[in-house]
Each structure stands twice: as C-alpha cells, then as structure tokens.
C-alpha cells in the first residue's frame, strides 16, 4: 500500500499529506515475454516509453514526442521531433533514436508492417533527415498513418533498452525501477520529464489477472483497480471509500462470421442470427447496464463510426426463422469459437456467458451451435485455419485510427472475412483519401456494407471500469484506456 509523505503523529500514524506511492491493479500482464521488445514491460499504462503522437479524449491526434507532421508524398511522411526531451539515462532525444525504435519494432513485431503500413526494412521505412526530422515511408498510400502511429506500441526507446534485463530506457514521466515477471512492475518519477515532473514519486503496477481477486484487493491492497467484474460494481459502490468510474470505450464485442465456409457464407443465415440476438437484453442483464448495444463493428465513440447511420438488427425471431428457411442452412452444427484467456479488457467468463446466450437464441430459430472454448493461441490457430464458423472477439482501436479494423475484411490480407471487390475498393478509397472527410465517408460506407451483409454479429460497445480509492486524484478516464495519463495521479492522505 501507499507510503506517505507528510506528518506522522506520535504513534507513527500518518496524519495527512500526499502518498509517495500508489498501487495500481492491472487486468493485463504487462510483464509477459512479449513486452521484451520494450524493455520487459508494456508501454501501455506504465508511461515509461512514449509514442510520437498522443490521442486526446475526443480522438484528436495531439503532438507528443513529435511536434509537427505532414504528408510529403503519397507514401512519405515527415515528423519533427520535440526539442529538449531527455531519456531516462540523460541523453537527448534525436531523430536517430526514432529510427532505431521503428526499425526494432518492424524487425521484432512482424504485424507492424500491416498495422501501421511501414515499408519493409530493405525499403528504408524510416530515416533521419537531420537531428530533428524523421521521414517515414509506407507500403502503400495510407491517409491514416499519423493517427495510426498515435499508438503506445509505436514507442520511442533508447538503444540501451534491453528486455532480457528488464531495462527500459524511454522518455516518459516514469522510469522503470524493477519488474517481477507476472507479479508487478515498479516505476519512479522522472524529474527531468519534458512535460514536468509527475505528482507521485512511485507507482507500483500489480498484475492481478483474475477479476474477482483484483476486485477484492481493492479492500486493502490497491489504490486503483482496472476492470473490476461488472457483477461486483454494486458491491464496490457500497464501499464509501471506493468510487467506480466508467467510460465507454472504442471496443466492440462481436462475432465474426466465416464468410468462406458454408453455411455461414450465406448472408440470410447471418442476418437471421443477427435478428435472433437481443443486444439490449445482453446489456441490461449480463452487463448490468454497463455497456451500449452495438450496431456495427466500430464503436460509436470513434469519430468515423457509422453507428448513427446503421439500422439496428432488432430481435425478431419470426423474421429470423423466415431467413433461416430461405437460407441454405440444413441443420448443420455451427462452431462458435471463443477464447478462455483474457484479451485486452475481455473477461473470459463473460465471453462464455455471451456464447451461451447466442447459442440459446440460435436454438430458438432452429440453428444449432456448438461452443468451443480454447486457449488464445489455439483460438487464433483455429481462426487462421478457417476452422470455425463464428469467432467471438472484443475489437477496437488502441490508436487514433481504426483503419486496421478493416484489414480483416480486405481480400489482400487473405482472411476468411473478405467481403468482395466492392468492399475492398471502398476501404482502399478511404485509405488513400486526401482529406479526413473523404476518408470517413468511405469508412462509413464500408461499415454499412458490412452490416448489410451481416458480416458480423455486433453485441455491445464495451464500457471499461476503474475502481478508485476516493482519495486518488488526477486519474481521468479516456476512451482508450491505454492512453490514461498517469503523470497527474496523486493521492491525499
């Protein structure tokens, strides 16, 4: 628990002041091997490493380590690096550091090529034009490049960063002190931070993957707990010392249909399943009202969500049965794949309950569904092998852009969710658009096509929760929880 700076009474009891340390319980393992790329700790939440651009609470892309950027060509972008930024080891941030960080990312995280469209390493995806200017080259025309790299994983790190030694050298308001794998990570305030020193000298991030344990730990071990189970919210709120904050996020819980495999290649069957499920019931009963019925694959909070222009597939079992009769479905058992591991804000038990509701609703329209729960790696293997009919995900952007949501539906990525040439060209039009308006228009059109074809079964827009000790201040919710600023976090005693 938090140590205390300030006065102590005769008995050694704290009498007030500001906490010297705050303990935060996280739902995600920020210390797992995957994060060795960033020095052994995740760039999400810890604020040790920083990206070039930041995402504001309204999804505006804001200057961060880069103060200015412009598209200089169809494939190239120039970024100007902020001056007087120091790494935790005292060295000044230069363009070469950015080049090193991006090359390391492309080399060690192959998906970077697709997510942010960096050109291949041999085609010089990034180069320093001078000490303060960096030029990026993309694989193809990509209007959303700047918003896309406003992402914590596109973080700038010093070459001394070494994941095997848990040594992360960044420019963030906190520097890494130590890491205990699968247990916790400790960070200390970096006094020379370019944005001013943080309010609290030390933060401890505790990895508590089990939501119930994390929720119970709020009693005496944690000052902040991410993602308490929705079933515990009422109980937490009954504690006067704890506040539960909620924030609609960009993420949408949905079921993807395998569009290549029968019988889910039949749009009528997919529409029938959309009509079988009641999003309102899911939100009201299973989520305790903490969610928003979804209409499409992109959450309504994202600036180019088509939410307002998408007609909801309301629950209508009669119409659904009619659509099943009209479809090519002949009583086959559909495989609904779900993962039993926490992914992002996903609580596995919740996905099982959702799968059971879908199965029950499908039964009512005469469609048989078999639920298959597997580990995340087996789940993604089944997905890649196109081995199922339906796959449940909690999807959403973690950056200032959601372009990569469309990747899975574009035929160039060889997915089994491809919606055809017209959809491909619409997405490509959005990606190559010169203006945001043009880009948004194309993406909204793409979402409308997806829902007209019922390519997905959207269930709800995710609300993430934070249980917070009432004496904690400076912790503002953000639609992307990964962009919650910890610098101003402080706690009164």
């Amino acid at each position, binding site marked *: 628990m938090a140590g205390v700076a300030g006065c102590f009474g005769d008995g050694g009891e704290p009498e007030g002041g500001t906490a010297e340390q705050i303990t935060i319980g996280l739902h995600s393992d920020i210390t797992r091997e995957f994060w060795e790329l960033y020095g052994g700790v995740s760039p999400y939440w810890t604020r040790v490493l920083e990206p070039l651009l930041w995402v504001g609470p309204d999804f505006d892309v804001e200057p961060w380590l880069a103060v200015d950027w412009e598209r200089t060509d169809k494939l190239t972008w120039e970024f100007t690096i902020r001056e007087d930024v120091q790494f935790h080891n005292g060295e000044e941030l230069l363009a070469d550091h950015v080049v090193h960080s991006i090359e390391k990312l492309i080399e060690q995280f192959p998906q970077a090529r697709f997510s942010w469209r960096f050109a291949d390493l041999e085609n010089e995806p990034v180069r320093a034009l001078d000490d303060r200017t960096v030029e990026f080259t993309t694989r193809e025309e990509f209007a959303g490049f700047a918003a896309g790299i406003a992402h914590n994983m596109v973080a700038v790190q010093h070459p001394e960063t070494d994941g095997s030694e848990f040594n992360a050298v960044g420019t963030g308001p906190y520097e890494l002190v130590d890491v205990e794998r699968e247990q916790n990570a400790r960070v200390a305030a970096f006094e020379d931070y370019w944005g001013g020193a943080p309010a609290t000298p030390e933060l401890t991030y505790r990895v508590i993957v089990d939501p119930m344990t994390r929720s119970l730990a709020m009693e005496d071990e944690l000052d902040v707990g991410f993602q308490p189970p929705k079933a*515990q919210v*009422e109980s937490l709120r009954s504690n006067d010392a704890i506040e539960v904050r909620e924030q609609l996020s960009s993420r949408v819980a949905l079921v993807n249909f395998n569009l290549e495999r029968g019988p889910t290649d039949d749009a009528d069957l997919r529409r029938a399943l959309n009509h079988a499920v009641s999003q309102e*019931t899911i939100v009201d009963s299973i989520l305790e009202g903490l969610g928003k019925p979804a209409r499409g694959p992109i959450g309504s909070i994202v600036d180019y969500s088509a939410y307002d222009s998408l007609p909801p597939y309301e629950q209508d079992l009669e119409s659904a049965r009619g659509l099943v009769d009209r479809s090519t479905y002949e009583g086959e058992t559909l495989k609904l794949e779900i993962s039993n591991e926490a992914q992002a804000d996903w609580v596995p038990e919740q996905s*099982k309950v959702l799968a*059971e509701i879908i199965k029950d609703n499908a039964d009512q329209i005469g469609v048989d569904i078999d639920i298959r729960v597997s580990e995340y790696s087996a789940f993604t293997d089944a997905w890649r092998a196109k081995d199922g009919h339906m796959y449940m995900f909690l999807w959403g952007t973690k950056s200032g852009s959601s372009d990569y949501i469309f990747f899975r539906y574009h035929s160039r990525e060889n997915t089994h969710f491809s919606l055809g040439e017209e959809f491909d060209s619409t997405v490509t039009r959005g990606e190559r658009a010169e203006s945001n308006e043009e880009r948004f228009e194309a993406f909204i059109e793409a979402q409308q096509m997806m829902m007209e074809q019922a390519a997905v079964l959207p269930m709800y827009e995710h609300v993430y929760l934070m249980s917070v000790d009432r004496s904690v201040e400076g912790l503002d919710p953000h639609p992307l929880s990964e962009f919650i600023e910890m610098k101003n976090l402080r706690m009164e005693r």
Partner: protein
Amino acid sequence: MSAADRPQAWRRRLDGTWSRRLRSIAEDRLDLLAWVIIAALVVSAVFAKPIRLTVPSVLQTLSGGFLAETVTLQPLQLAPHDPIDQNLADRLHPPSREYPLGTDQLGRDILSRLMVGARISLSVGVVVVSISLMIGTAVGVVSGYLGGWVDEAVMRIVDIVLAFPGLLLALVVAGILGPSLTNIMIALAVVGWTQYARIVRGSVLSVKQRDFVAAAKLMGVSEPRLVSTHVIPNVIGPVVILATLDMAYVILATAGLSFLGLGAQPPTPEWGTMLSQGRHHLLTAWWIANVPGVAIMVAVLAFNILGDSLRDLLDPRVASRLEGKGGL
C-alpha cells in the same frame, strides 16, 4: 460333519463373515453416510433427466425403420427444471421454493444443473477408472507374471509416467487434444493406469509364488487359464479399493480441468465449469459457486470414505478380527 456338509458350512461361515462386515459398515455412521451420499449421487445421475440414445442412421436403416432416431433408456426426470433452459428474468435468483438452490447468471436452475452434473462427473469417473483399471491390470499382470526384461521395460515406462505430476500431465494432454470431456477422459486415463499396473504387478509377484499356483501348474493348467482363474481373482481386492479412491481423484481432476476451461464446454452443466462461472458472483450470488463447490467436496469425501470402507470389507485381516471377536 460329513464331507457333503462341508461346502454348506463354509458358505454359512462366509455368509456370517460378510453379514458381520456389512453390519460393521452399517454401524459406522461415517461409512453409512458415504454409502448414502453415493447412492443419492447415483440416483441423481440416472434419474436427473431422461437418458436418450441417438441411434446411428446405419442401424436405423438396417432395422427397416424399427428403430427410431432416438431410444429412451430412462424416461424419468427428477430435476425440477431443464438444466440448460435460460430464463434471464430470473437470473441470480437466491434459493427459494421454486429454485431450491437458486439460479445462475442466465437464470438456470442450479439444483437441476447440479443433478445433471452428477451424471457427468460419475460418467467420467466410471469411464476413466474402468479404462485405467483394465489397462493397468493387464499391464501389471503381464509384467508381474512374465518377469524378466518385460517386467523391467514395463516398470521403467511406469516410472517415467509417474515421474510427472499426474494432474499436470493430464493438463498437458488435455491442452494438446483440445478442450472436451472426451479428451479429459483420455488425458486422465493416459496417466491413471500406471498406479494400477504397479499395485497389480506387486500383488502378482507375491501370488505367483503361492502353493496353489504351483499346484495348478503341476496339474497342467494352461497359463492363460491360470492367470484368469487363479492369479487375477487374488489380486483384484486392492484394485477395487484403489478404483474407489481413484473415483474421488477423477471427479476432482475433471472439475479442476473443467474449471480451467479444458473440460466440459458451455452450456454443459459440469460442476467445475459451474464453479468457474460463479466466481465473479461470489459476493453477490454466493450460491452459484458454492453449491457446485460443496457438491465436489462431498462427492470426493464420500468416495474416499467408501474406499476406506471397502478396504475394511475386503481386507482378510479385518475379517479375521471380526470373526475372532464375533463382530464389532
């Protein structure tokens, strides 16, 4: 006493011993409670809901339409509700007259799910224990009876399998095969046969030195007959006790693996799965997790006590004590 009277005398003596042994069980309240619990579990497993068998289409065709698509083996239903019927209006309902053990997060009756869950737990237990017992007994008999390099080779394999913690190995096997009850059965049987093999092998080594085995050999009894009629019946006692204790382990392991998501798939009302799904409601709807938790504990305890009870029943030393004392 004439020679003709002797078998009846032996039978009377034997009957007397068994009745004393059974009486001793009846007098031990803990033993009796275990037997009652297991009887209740069996009744629940059999009669929770009708047992219907799907007839393969080939058989239906061969029978000329005589066989229906499904055959009902047991038509009764003791469970008050359908265990997988969702009723969201009644979700998280505390125990009441309509739902004696409450409802879960999807409004399903916990009592009904618990009763059908007993069928799953006992079925898995019986199948796994039977497979393990058959494989282990066969391997143990062959190893112990033949001896030599066969014994060496078999026992080293057993040592290797036993070197791994059983549940961990089952976890790995279930992980590789994928999550399902069938795969859990395979996983548990793969690691479960070794202890039977070891016990049977030890008993066979002892039995094959006995005079009656030598006598049977001298009389020209063939080896397969010798093993099946003289050796196996004399080593089966400890195996039965082990099997009973193993039932407890298998029920616990199945619940554990299902809790981890490697066993029964939703909406199957398996106890471990029910426990796992109730975790998030521990403080607000305690009955969802606690009821299956208690059921697992009681079933495991009952099978363990049953094992002890059977040991008393089958152990010759206990029998002689009973006879010497004229009963307890």
